[in-house]
């Protein structure tokens, strides 16, 4: 049961092999037994999950089940869930019970999905290793000495460890794709504005985008069918028709034009990753695709531009956490200033403070033109690079990350080293383009991610390309060696 995809589980539910309550209970038990090894969940909502499962089973027996009815998933703890703690990985919100559902959560609820709980994450989605969580680091199921990536590290690890069939994530600079790559799962960051941001706690509003994290492209397509669409509550969501993302998965790839940006195959790239990506490209050629080298000349400016824009927006977005209305308030403040300083000083972790300070500085009078305005100009150049490139080709491919999963603590002392892990992912957020990561190899027992980038609203194309690769290869089916220790082995594991 734990090795099945969402699509397979849906078949099992329809065939009556198991009920949603049984499926949900099995996953809850597995989380209960195994998550101490990974720390991928912040909150497990067993009671609500079983209620949702019961309701889903009732719908199914009444003949009213949809494609997602009764399927368990988990939500990154950045999505507000009514009546459930929504911490965003921060001490600041450790006591915050959201009084409403994020649009994404609402949509999954309406589709009949079961939420197992809330997954761990870097505090306020700031990080690339999930070491910045108030609830402790998440461990990579492939090697528990390694990080799972971040910021959606809990979602990635939970899917990789088969603690949930799928999970939601968010991606501001690579936070879906990088942990997907490091944990050997499939993740897609949709076009900016494709998935509503309402109820998704903001890190950098112009870059944040929610998306699916799952075991296969087909599962990601099923999830995106639920998640995508215009939301009147989010002014930046787009009124663009939502296709059935499952409809074109089986289109053949003959004639697909793939661009390989020379800037992505740089000196910093781990040779094993380079080799795996090249091998994957060969596989696509075998499926009928053609390849050509392209150039994205401003790629080297993406990290500096991102680390101005994202912290600037964050410095303002996180001002609301002031201890006045909700969240952490320091004990016995002597006056207003003391309350602000200590509440925020105690509530935020060091990476969040670092980015608030960087952003505050970049927006300061006298520095605005040199930093924020300049970064926005660079952002337009980066966007133009992609638009130009995508006129001649269908998709861009390259590595998702320059390195495989690194050891816990390895990069925590040097923020710049950590930031460089996102060099291939964050230019897409600056451009607003969709991108996904799928497993395409491994090195020293750690998975490798292939990044596929498409034009605006080309999610269906990306999912089709990924699905065809997954039909021809089995990288996405590989899983960590000791997922089911003998003592824990259950009969469901087939």
């Amino acid at each position, binding site marked *: 049961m734990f090795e099945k995809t969402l699509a397979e589980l849906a078949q099992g539910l329809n065939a009556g092999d198991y009920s949603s309550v049984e499926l949900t209970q099995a996953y809850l038990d597995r989380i209960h037994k195994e998550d101490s090894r990974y720390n991928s969940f912040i909150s497990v909502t067993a009671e609500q999950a079983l209620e949702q499962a019961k309701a889903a089973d009732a719908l199914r027996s009444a003949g009213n089940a949809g494609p997602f009815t009764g399927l368990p998933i988990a939500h990154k703890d950045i*999505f*507000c869930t009514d009546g459930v703690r*929504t911490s*965003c990985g921060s001490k600041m*919100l450790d006591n*915050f019970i*959201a*009084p*409403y559902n*994020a649009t994404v959560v609402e949509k999954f609820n309406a589709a009949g999905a079961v939420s197992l709980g809330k997954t761990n994450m870097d505090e306020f989605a700031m990080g690339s290793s999930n070491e910045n969580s108030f609830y402790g680091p998440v461990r990579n199921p492939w090697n528990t000495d390694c990080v799972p990536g971040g910021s959606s590290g809990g979602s990635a690890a939970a899917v990789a460890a088969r603690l949930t069939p799928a999970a939601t994530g968010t991606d501001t600079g690579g936070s879906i794709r990088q942990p997907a790559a490091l944990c050997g799962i499939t993740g897609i960051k949709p076009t900016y504005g494709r998935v509503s*941001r*309402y*109820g*998704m*706690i*903001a890190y*950098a*509003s*112009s870059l944040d985008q929610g998306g699916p994290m799952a075991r296969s492209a087909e599962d990601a397509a099923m999830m995106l069918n639920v998640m995508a669409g215009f939301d*009147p*509550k*989010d*002014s*930046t969501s787009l009124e663009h028709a939502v296709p059935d993302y499952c409809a074109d998965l089986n289109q053949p790839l003959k004639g697909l034009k793939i661009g390989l940006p020379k800037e992505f195959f740089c000196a910093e790239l781990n040779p094993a990753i380079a080799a795996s990506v090249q091998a994957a490209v060969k596989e696509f050629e075998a499926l009928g695709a053609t390849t050509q080298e392209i150039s994205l000349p401003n790629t080297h400016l993406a990290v500096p531009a991102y680390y101005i824009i994202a912290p*600037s*927006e964050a*410095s*303002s977005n*996180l*001002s*609301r*956490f*002031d201890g*006045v*209305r*909700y969240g952490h308030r320091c004990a016995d403040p002597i006056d*207003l200033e003391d309350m*602000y300083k200590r509440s925020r000083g105690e509530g935020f972790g060091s990476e969040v403070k670092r980015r608030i300070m960087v952003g*505050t500085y970049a*927006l*300061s*009078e006298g520095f*605005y033109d040199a930093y*924020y305005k300049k970064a926005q100009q660079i952002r337009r150049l980066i966007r133009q690079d992609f638009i130009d490139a995508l006129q001649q080709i269908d998709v861009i491919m390259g590595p998702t990350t320059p390195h495989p999963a690194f050891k816990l603590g390895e990069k925590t002392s040097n923020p710049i080293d950590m930031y460089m892990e996102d060099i291939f992912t964050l230019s897409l957020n600056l451009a607003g383009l969709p991108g996904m990561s799928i497993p395409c190899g491994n090195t020293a027992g750690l998975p490798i991610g292939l990044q596929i980038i498409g034009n605006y609203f080309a999610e269906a194309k990306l999912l089709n390309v990924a699905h065809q690769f997954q039909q021809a290869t089995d990288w996405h089916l590989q899983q960590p060696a000791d997922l089911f220790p003998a003592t824990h082995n259950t009969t469901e594991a087939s």
Partner: protein
Amino acid sequence: MQWEAVIGLEIHAQLATKSKIFSGASTAFGAEPNTQACAVDLALPGTLPVFNAEALRMAVMFGLAIDAEIGYRSVFDRKNYFYPDLPKGYQTSQLFHPIVGLGHIDIELANGAHKRIGVTRAHLEEDAGKSLHDQFPGMTGIDLNRAGTPLLEIVSEPDMRSAEEAVAYVKKIHAIVTTLGICDGNMSEGSFRCDCNVSIRPKGQQEFGTRTETKNINSFRFIEKAIKGEIERQIDLIEEGGRVIQATRLYDADKDETRSMRSKEEANDYRYFPCPDLLPIIIDTEYVEAIRATLPELPDARHARFMEQYGLSDYDAGVISAYRDTADYFETTARVAEDAKLAANWVMGELSKFLNGNNIEICNSPVAADILGQLLARIKDGTLNGNAAKQVFEALWNGETDVDQVIETKGLKQVTDSGAIETMVDEVIAAATPQVEQYRAAEPDKRGKMLGFFMGKVMQASKGTANPGQVNKLLKVKLDALCD
């Protein structure tokens, strides 16, 4: 030395939208604290703003009314600062690309001359909540009902040179926004408030002096007093060898003085940047022209028409046209009464006295405009004299609605029968021997003034219904006959 004041004003007009500028919560005034603040107003994590298009329409109306450049692409910016009644830690405003650009209005000065005052810009922004410092000992209460109420901040050029000019400008802006129906203009509830930037310079000098900003003044009278006081304070300061420090000041109406709130050194760096949660507002000429077609007659045009059409004096026309509700009321009354001057006198006189005395807005007047018109028609046709009309008005104010019935029941129909009047006059003269003797003893040119006593007695005897003209004439004839 001859000093000249330089004054620029920032007016915050609350726009009369039903819901807030970025959320669906109600903007109604006076509800229980925090009952009109939704998740967005409380700035709960994850919430996002959605712009209320009604606020845009109102801002564009104002822009057209002051002949301003309209911002076809306007952008919301975030003004970042911490304050407990500012839930997001930033105010969403428009710094770089406001919805309304350079425009102007004309004000009339005491000497009758007109002066043009530039309006630099008007931009949309959200109001903050309120901090309540006196209800919870040792703590501060926060009421976020007002948070997110749409404001139009109207910024003038530093074109005014006296407190009187400033007040004339504020009154004119007030008349425009209330006539447009985009602001209720209620200053005591804070719907319309004013920040005054004041500096002084030696007369003839081009360069501006250092200015102070006095915040949130909420009556015309306080604006005048605060500016006058601030000009005097600055002159005294400089003449005593001091210098003006750029600062934000507060006007204390109880003490009638301004005091420093914070200096420039303590001022925030607001770190403005474009709000990434809101898209730029793009409008086209079609949208703007459709709004232009809906503009009501503006105060200046109405003022001119009232002089032209009704023959009102410049002053009366100005007062009546300053509020749309007053102007509308007047026009209805004048039409029903078929006498505009009589209507103007009553609207500005008796009606105004009752409204002010009971603190009632003209739109809520217990005496409707057409009813007052019917009453005035009875003066015009001679049924009522002025005195009796006031008695009828009082009855109408207290709930009566049928003018003729009130006249009938109270027996207030004017007595014009000369026989009846003559009888009353004779009785009064016969009963007032000492006064008649005084009248006779007086110089002929002093006698006119002494008629008042006899008039009063006759009117009293007729319960106010005798025709005053006839009484006056007859008294004069009869008394003068006694003098020969």
